[in-house]
């Protein structure tokens, strides 16, 4: 059951006209629109804002239901947002925005390039996590918020929270970085490469200019999602969910069609993803993660961290092999090396990388709630 009730996605143009977005690469985007949702009320002092940064396939709809939605299908992180939940909407003003380069309302490769009047496609500039953060900040400025109580995110969302705290240490009290990495491993990049190849080798990819065509690179995107999904689950959770069971039958059919339940599940994940996601955005977000390396210049990080007083919470899950606990430990250690106060916990959970989306085991939400509560009390938020 959803905690925040009926919500709606709003839009704001945060860069336009004589104020284009200048990216970290130096490239510019003349216009950026952001899709976002908010839950709870901003307090008079404007100190209770908590920003949710979403992961690769997420969107602004983190919690609640849109008008007419199936009540059993609330926003993607509904279990952590709402009255009495860790991101307690009785205390906090919670914001979630679709990322730059996304396909859920924020400017991305499927948006119209004002210069040509056609969708950007691969002419959309490569963006970095820093750019995603700058767009979030522009939205906050639009909302009249100068400072965050916290940024919270899992996976790519955690990367944004980390980058935010490094780039703007005086604007953020706390960063909760969950199931994330500060530097993808060769294995991570390899999986990312295969997913990218799946999309780009699809004959319907048309060099990214498929928006006006009859066919889109659905097969490639579905395959990319299937590969991704394997890395999101743990071996244990796959065994428990599917084992070697046969789909809709007692005995194997012995053939090359989908036979095992796990195959059927991956197919379903791939197909349903195609209906709601853009292949180009998948490529851009993959690259955002591949190139992410916020500790590349440790001297800068140290200088930045020392300018602020941001507290960090770094969480990992023991069954996550996409961003294993080792990724989190390295991140925690690099942050500490830069002088930051870091609390770290590896939580035992069967759900693999996807654990950050689950409410169980309760230890996970207990830690997030405790961290936010401490930040709130420090700011005098009741």
């Amino acid at each position, binding site marked *: 059951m959803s905690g925040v009730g009926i919500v709606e996605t709003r839009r704001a143009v945060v860069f336009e006209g004589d104020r284009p977005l200048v990216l970290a690469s130096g490239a510019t985007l003349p216009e950026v629109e952001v899709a976002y949702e908010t839950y709870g009320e901003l307090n008079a002092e404007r100190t209770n804002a908590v920003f949710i940064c979403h992961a690769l396939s997420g969107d602004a709809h983190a919690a609640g239901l849109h008008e007419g939605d199936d009540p059993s299908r609330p926003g993607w992180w509904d279990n952590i947002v709402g009255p009495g939940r860790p991101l307690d909407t009785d205390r906090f003003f919670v914001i979630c925005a679709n990322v730059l380069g996304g396909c859920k309302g924020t400017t991305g490769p499927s948006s119209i390039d004002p210069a040509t009047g056609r969708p950007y496609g691969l002419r959309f500039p490569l963006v970095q996590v820093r750019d995603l953060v700058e767009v979030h900040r522009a939205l906050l400025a639009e909302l009249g918020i100068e400072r965050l109580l916290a940024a919270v995110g899992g996976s790519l969302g955690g990367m944004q929270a980390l980058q935010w705290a490094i780039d703007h240490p005086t604007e953020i009290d706390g960063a909760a970085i969950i199931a994330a990495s500060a530097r993808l491993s060769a294995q991570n990049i390899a999986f990312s490469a295969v997913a990218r190849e799946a999309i780009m080798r699809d004959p319907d990819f048309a060099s990214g200019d498929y928006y006006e065509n009859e066919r889109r690179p659905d097969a490639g995107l579905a395959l990319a999602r299937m590969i991704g999904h394997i890395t999101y689950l743990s071996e244990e959770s796959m065994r428990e969910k599917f084992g070697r069971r046969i789909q809709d039958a007692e005995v194997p059919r012995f053939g090359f069609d989908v036979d095992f339940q796990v195959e059927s599940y991956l197919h379903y994940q791939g197909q349903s993803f195609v209906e709601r996601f853009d292949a180009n955005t998948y490529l851009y977000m993959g690259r955002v993660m591949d190139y992410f390396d916020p500790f590349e210049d440790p001297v800068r990080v140290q200088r930045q961290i020392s300018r602020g007083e941001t*507290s960090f919470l770094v969480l990992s899950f023991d069954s996550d092999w996409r961003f294993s606990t080792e990724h989190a*430990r390295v991140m*925690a*250690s690099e942050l*500490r090396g830069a*002088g930051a*106060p*870091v*609390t*770290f*916990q*590896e939580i035992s959970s069967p759900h693999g990388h996807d654990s950050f989306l689950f409410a169980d085991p309760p*230890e996970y939400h*207990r*830690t997030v709630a*405790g*961290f936010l*509560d*401490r930040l709130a009390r*420090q700011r005098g938020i009741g």
Partner: protein
Amino acid sequence: MRPDLDVVADLVGSGLRVLDLGCGDGALLEDLIERRGCTGLGVERELDDFHACIARGVPVTQGDLEKELPRFAAGDFDVAVLSLTLQAVSRPDRVLTEMKRVASRLVVSLPNFAHWRLRAALALRGRMPVTDALPYQWYDTPNIHLCTITDFEALAAELDLGVRQRTLIDASGRPVEGLARFAPNLLAERVVYSLVA
């Protein structure tokens, strides 16, 4: 704060990078950070204590200190603290060696198993002693490596750890004066050391 932690905090000092192994609810680190200008990190296995640290705003790693210690780099800290925990680890000698690696100074407190009350319980009653300082039964105690002041100082010497300062305390954690200083191994219930490599 517990009086014995006051003694530990005094021995730690001010403005230093402190690692508190088995930091409990984080009271010592909070004091060191808030009032003594230290930066700190706790390591705590027990979840309720870990959450108490979060509530205090004390940075903490949740986990087993014997597994976490080897992950720190040499010289990561100025002081490594182990208060009333050495007797509960599986290899006290290795823990001390690791502490020496990650910090240039160690502050260690421990119960003295040669205190006369304990000796009396064993000698006169023939039972494993249960006291205010060691309140457990033999079968449920977490204290698996108890030692005496003499034992500890022998191990410290073996590990090339020099005793820079030693404060004798009673079961309530307050420093003891007078007679205890002449026969510490008989009269001190607990002891806090500042040790240097």
